[in-house]
């Protein structure tokens, strides 16, 4: 008998929730292991993760931020006029509160989420996680926590870098290409930008970083015996991180306007 569509959907939704609970539990466990950063080998993993996720992604983030900023500013200026203060407010709403955190998260998911899940999955298959345990080194403290901490720190830094590039670069490029008044648009933006907007953006970056890294570690460490499970784990980590990020983004955005 063919399983009906409701059953299939129900099972998928249930699996997603079970995984989501696992992801949050792993993030909590990693938080408890944070004092491990005082140990040099753990700190080295943390620094490497920052280098890979943060430093190596700077160029991609700058390029996307610049193009996106230019597109948004051009559109806003053509719709709302060159001198209106609406430009600043729209920039804050769109770039600072919404697209900045989302784009930074998507770039990190694509670059580092997959890499972390695949790396941990390969380590699991080749028995390296077991070798670490045999040396008295727990995976949560040595493998998971520094990756979550490093990826979250990097995402926060990339988020502000993305916003800065999108807003300042976009304004500079649009003033060069379309003769828009750079100074007055910047003033509009500064007037519209509040500490609350930055806090919302920071909160999103923090939660997205935790969720992306924990999902990648969770799925990487769920790999058991076969190397063919590694790409599947990477795919699952990406999809679930994307869904969680979009859903959490929606919640925070709605909650911030209540």
């Amino acid at each position, binding site marked *: 008998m063919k399983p009906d569509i409701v059953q299939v959907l129900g099972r998928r939704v249930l699996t997603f929730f079970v995984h989501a609970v696992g992801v949050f539990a792993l993030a909590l466990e990693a938080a408890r292991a944070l004092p491990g950063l005082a140990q040099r*080998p753990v700190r*080295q993993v943390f620094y490497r993760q920052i280098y890979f996720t943060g430093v190596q992604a700077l160029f991609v983030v700058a390029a996307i931020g610049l193009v996106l900023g230019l597109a948004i500013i051009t559109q806003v200026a053509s719709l709302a006029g060159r001198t209106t203060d609406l430009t600043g407010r729209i920039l804050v709403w769109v770039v600072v509160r919404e697209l900045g955190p989302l784009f930074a998260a998507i770039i990190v998911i694509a670059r580092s989420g997959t890499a972390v899940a695949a790396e941990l999955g390969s380590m699991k298959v080749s028995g390296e996680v077991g070798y670490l345990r045999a040396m*008295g080194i727990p995976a949560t403290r040595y493998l998971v926590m520094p990756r979550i901490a490093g990826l979250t720190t990097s995402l926060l830094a990339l988020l502000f870098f993305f916003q800065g590039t999108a807003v300042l670069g976009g304004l500079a490029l649009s003033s060069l290409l379309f003769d828009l008044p750079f100074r007055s648009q910047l003033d509009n933006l500064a007037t519209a930008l509040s500490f609350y907007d930055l806090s919302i953006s920071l909160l999103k970056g923090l939660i997205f970083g935790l969720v992306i890294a924990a999902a990648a570690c969770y799925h990487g460490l769920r790999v058991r015996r076969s190397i063919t499970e590694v790409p599947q784990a990477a795919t699952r980590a990406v999809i679930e991180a994307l869904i969680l990020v979009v859903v959490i983004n929606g919640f925070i955005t709605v909650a911030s306007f209540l």
Partner: protein
Amino acid sequence: MIKFREVTAAGFSEASFSIGAGVACKLVTESNLDRDLILHLLLASAPAERGEIALFGEVLNEVTEVRALALFSRLGIVWSGGGLVSNLKVWENLLLPVMYHRGGEPATFEGQVVDLLRRLGVADDLVPGYLQSLPGALPAQVQRLLGCARAALMDPEIVIYESAFEGLQRDVRARLESFAVWFHTQRPGRTSVYLSSDEQSLQRLPADLVLRQEGGRFSA
């Protein structure tokens, strides 16, 4: 130091044996599967259906994970596959357990690492190249020697050689054998366990105790 009391699990049926402090023991299993099972049971990564496994006098299924990890840090295992972490350079691999458990500056271990590698027969001119390599770039038997140096650097109370003397070139095997014999005497009360399913590969190693698996049990 290591005690199995009436352990029933997969190929073992009420298997009992005890390896005391300061003993060099050959532990010969009937198959690689049983050899792996012993390690899994000893590292509490596979549960026994019945019976007790004790390490350093503590029953493993009665201790917390944190306590179990603390006990494992007093073990040194020389894995047949080397047991190195693929994304760390050899130098980082060698220092990982000792730096994790005891801290300190990497430079302070340089002399010890060089001495251990020399004793394992690694030529001095090859050492800098090896230390800066990723393990995957090195031959399997070199990885095993490096894994042995990593285990030795921790100055463990128990050393377990997991099929460590199989599949090596004759001179490399001889070096590893003489290292194992020498290392056993370097700490009073150190226990060395030569674990293998191939008794021939352990032929040249002196031992105080030989335990052989027969059916599901072990006998001396």
